[in-house]
């Protein structure tokens, strides 16, 4: 079989079959390559799109990037349903099977160690958004009568917003403390730009939690409870994801990633 090897993930052998209709990047089905009892899940992709030059050009194209990212995540998602995959970063491409084997051999220890650590766990994403608008609404509406009125209104608005942000930060911190004490591990990610979010508000917490599958229901309930008693805040739960945020432990190629710390947040 010709074509480059686009690798999605490394995992241990799994019994359940992947959906037959499943397609990955470049509309190619995911295949498996076994090496020393580990499996690389990959698609054979055309050189015309995935050699260095075309790939670089494609990555500049938001539509292509989105489609590829969704396809990549689709395969990881399907794997997460049947096993614990170690997801590789987007666009990890090898020349052929033999190059892929060489990589697996070189990293065998790391793969085994990490797969052992993550086995049976999934990642849940929790984000908190705050909508600053209610605070602004506290200020009297209508045109200010004078410059002094204007300044006073501005001051009240600012103060109201400060209170809102402070409350949001506190809420996020408490929620994170609760969730991270339930989860096995957690990572704080940078808040997302609100322009990219679906709903209104500013993202003040963007965290990932590593939770055993069996405890997931309880974790989701914990998040749901926080959702209910918080006017002004929006709590968003995503998952279950493959443990994307918890694969790091070695600084690879000078990539600092989120790796290295013991996972203690406080």
């Amino acid at each position, binding site marked *: 079989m010709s074509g480059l090897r686009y*690798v999605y993930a490394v995992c241990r052998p799994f*019994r*359940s079959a992947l959906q037959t209709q499943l397609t990955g990047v470049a509309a190619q089905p995911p295949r498996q390559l076994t090496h020393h009892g580990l499996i690389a899940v990959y698609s054979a992709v055309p050189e015309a799109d995935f050699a260095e030059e075309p*790939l*670089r050009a494609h*990555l*500049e194209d*938001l539509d292509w*990037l*989105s489609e590829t*990212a*969704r396809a990549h*995540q689709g395969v990881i*998602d399907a794997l*997460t*349903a*049947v*096993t*614990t995959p170690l*997801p*590789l*970063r987007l*666009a*990890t*491409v*090898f*020349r052929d099977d033999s*190059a892929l084997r060489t*990589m697996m051999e070189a*990293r065998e220890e790391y793969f085994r160690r990490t797969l052992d650590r993550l*086995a049976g766990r999934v990642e849940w*994403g929790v984000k908190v958004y705050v909508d600053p608008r209610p605070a602004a609404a506290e200020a009297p509406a209508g045109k200010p009568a004078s410059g002094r009125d204007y300044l006073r209104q501005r001051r009240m608005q600012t103060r109201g*917003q400060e209170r809102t*942000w*402070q409350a*949001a*930060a506190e809420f*996020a911190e408490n929620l994170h403390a609760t969730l991270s004490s339930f989860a096995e591990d957690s990572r*704080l*990610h*940078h*808040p997302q*730009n609100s*322009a*990219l*979010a*679906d709903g209104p508000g500013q993202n*003040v917490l963007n965290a990932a939690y590593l939770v055993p*599958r069996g405890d997931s229901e309880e974790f989701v309930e914990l998040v749901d409870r926080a959702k209910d008693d918080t006017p002004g805040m929006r709590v968003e739960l*995503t*998952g279950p*994801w493959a443990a*994307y945020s918890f*694969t790091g432990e070695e600084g*690879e190629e000078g*990539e*600092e990633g989120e790796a*290295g*710390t013991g996972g203690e*947040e406080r």
Partner: protein
Amino acid sequence: MTTASRLPEPYGQGSGANLADILERVLDKGVVIAGDIRINLLDIELLTIKLRLIVASVDKAKEMGIDWWEEDPALSSRARRRELTRENAELRRRLEELEPAGERKER
């Protein structure tokens, strides 16, 4: 080899998944392995998406005084480095403004 029997229904994923969430994970998390096709994702111009995801909101959050998550060492190394670079440039610029050309003191 566990099956997913006890896993709750997915939240916020599927076709309607927030693209930012997906990009954040597939571009920024996961295992980094240099393949044969050498693409440094950080070189990709479009990764300003990522920068838009991250930098813009960090600055904005800081403006609002929300920075408690910066205490997290896992989080802040990158931010710190970027901040230092920015600060450096800013300081250099100010220094140049303060010291008219030719009058720069030796230190």
